[in-house]
């Protein structure tokens, strides 16, 4: 029932180091992310499947998605909070966050997201020209 505390808990410690705050602004704007279309490469389709399985729970659009909520709060409208709407997620950035984690997002092990799956995910979220 920890979730019921969300709207009311007072978090008094304020010392977190934010990866998002240091890394993300350095990334240049890129063309829109590559979304798999009918006939899209199997890697992009695989990337979409990885996203749906491992990322969407926190990073899909809409309410009650902690990752989207956190990025909305970070960017304040300058960038979309939902990852699939981003245009600047170069593969290295996705790979770093998945393997290093950030804030309350833990790293993901290779039994969860293999290196091949991570490459597909990074390709799926990457700008088209990556």
């Amino acid at each position, binding site marked *: *029932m*920890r979730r*019921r505390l969300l709207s009311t808990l007072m978090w008094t410690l304020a010392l977190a180091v934010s990866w*998002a705050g240091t890394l993300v602004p350095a990334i240049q704007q890129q063309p829109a992310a590559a979304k798999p279309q009918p006939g899209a490469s199997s890697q992009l389709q695989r990337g979409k499947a990885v996203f749906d399985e491992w990322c969407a729970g926190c990073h899909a659009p809409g309410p009650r998605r902690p990752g989207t909520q956190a990025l909305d709060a970070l960017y304040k409208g300058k960038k979309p909070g939902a990852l699939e709407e981003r245009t600047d997620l170069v593969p290295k950035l996705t790979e770093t966050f998945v393997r290093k984690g950030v*804030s309350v997002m833990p*790293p993901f092990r290779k039994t969860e997201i293999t290196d091949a799956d991570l490459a597909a995910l990074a390709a799926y979220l990457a700008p088209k020209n990556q």
Partner: protein
Amino acid sequence: MAVPPGVSEQNFRRALERFARVVGSEWVFTSDEDVALYKDAYTPLWNENDEKTASAALAPNSAEQVQQIVRIANEYRIPLYPISTGRNLGYGGSAPVLSGSVVLDLKRMNRIIEVSERNASALVEPGVSYFDLYRYIQERKLKLWIDCPDPGWGSVIGNALDHGAGYTMNPYRDHFGSQCGMEVVTGAGDLIRTGMGALPNSKTWQQYKYGYGPYIDGIFSQSNFGVVTKMGIWLMPEPEAYLDGNIECFNHDDIIALVDHMSYLMNTGVQNAGTNLQSPLRFAISQEPDLRALLTRDDAASVARLNDVARQRNVPIWSNTFKFYGPEEVVRAQWAYTKRRLGAITNSRFVDGAFYRMPLTEQQKSTLRDEQDLGVPTLGTFSIGARTAQNPTPTTGHLGFSPVIPMTGEAVIESQRVFSRVLQEAGRDVAANVFPQSYHPRTFVILVMFSVMHNVESNRQTRTLFRRLIEVAAEHGWGEYRTHTTFMDDCAKAYSFNNNALLRLHERLKDAVDPNGIISAGRYGIWPRHLRRG
């Protein structure tokens, strides 16, 4: 290369070669980069010498491979630390209690072996998450619900073994209570099946728990006697309807009658789910030091002042959500009876809540306030500590101190005051941090949440405070139902009746079932003979 304690580098290399022959070299992780992925992401020991780290990790994909690994580990005395999905964040995650252990990562064992709609049960492997089981059921349009804890990526088996709980109907929300039959590789390397599973060709492994002879399933929960490789779990037949409603009370001592009524309603099956007892006033006054101080006092004048504030601000001191699952006419009657029974509490008021007929549409699912109440897994719990507009500095994780207290209003009042005083002495927030939850039937769990940070000093202060809370709770007869790996010894020591007789029995069992002390050394305070202190 890190080496397990007490193991020579030469023997460790030999063992790793043998492990690789079992699981394949691609599933043996030894590089610093790969092994670092097994750290506890929410550790309160971040960047300290005591931070828990593995020496390597192995990822088998079958019980047979687990059995071979355990036998090799016995041969070389390699400490293993099994994890299921490794997502027990807040309780140690994927990091071993004993640094240098080899993590036995069971995530690849993710087969849903059977789901029986008629028997309302499933048989799964440890890598199966609540999301996995939910998707399986949805894809096949089975009229079954899962009962999921906060994070949907948790393991069905792992959560049950850790005595986790969920949010739907009794008895399904008590996850270990809903398990029915295990397959276990013991520390000595034997493969056993419990309950009716011990009967070859059994037709009732997931239907009758007790089998024949002593019921031993419990020794494989919160312990380290073996590796559970399969488990049966009872599922909930999809109810026809769901209804909830709230009661709000404005007198401090109303909690006594309120909990007595709640207890009666639960124990007679009228209210057939967990409770959600809250104190809206605690939050309303959390930023007002004078009023907040009242929360630690038990004199009549302080109570009267709280009552006055509640009435003046029209903010209830107590509230509870009642949830009902069943046929529409039944759940409406249950709520009507609940209101009639609790109407005796003076000045209380009722607020009708949600009502759904099943099955839910996808549109309805997307707008649910509390998905898990309707059997839908989510990751919404990770909003705790995450960056929001109101919380611009996110944490790096959280911990929960969670002692079991009696299900009485008096116990709620006493425990809130006691823990609020400890928090106040430590300079922490006393208003928001003490919640009575109904994780399991017949008791409350008081939940005190802490953030963990990438900050050594603040984590040290939190650990000191956490240990103080364990001591104070024990002085009052309250003990934790579950805890983070950092505090497992501390909690075990609190359960000390008759010169630690229970812990000593656990140790004798450990010596018998895992004679070389291979599995999860130190988990829940149970250490193998060669690592025991004193």
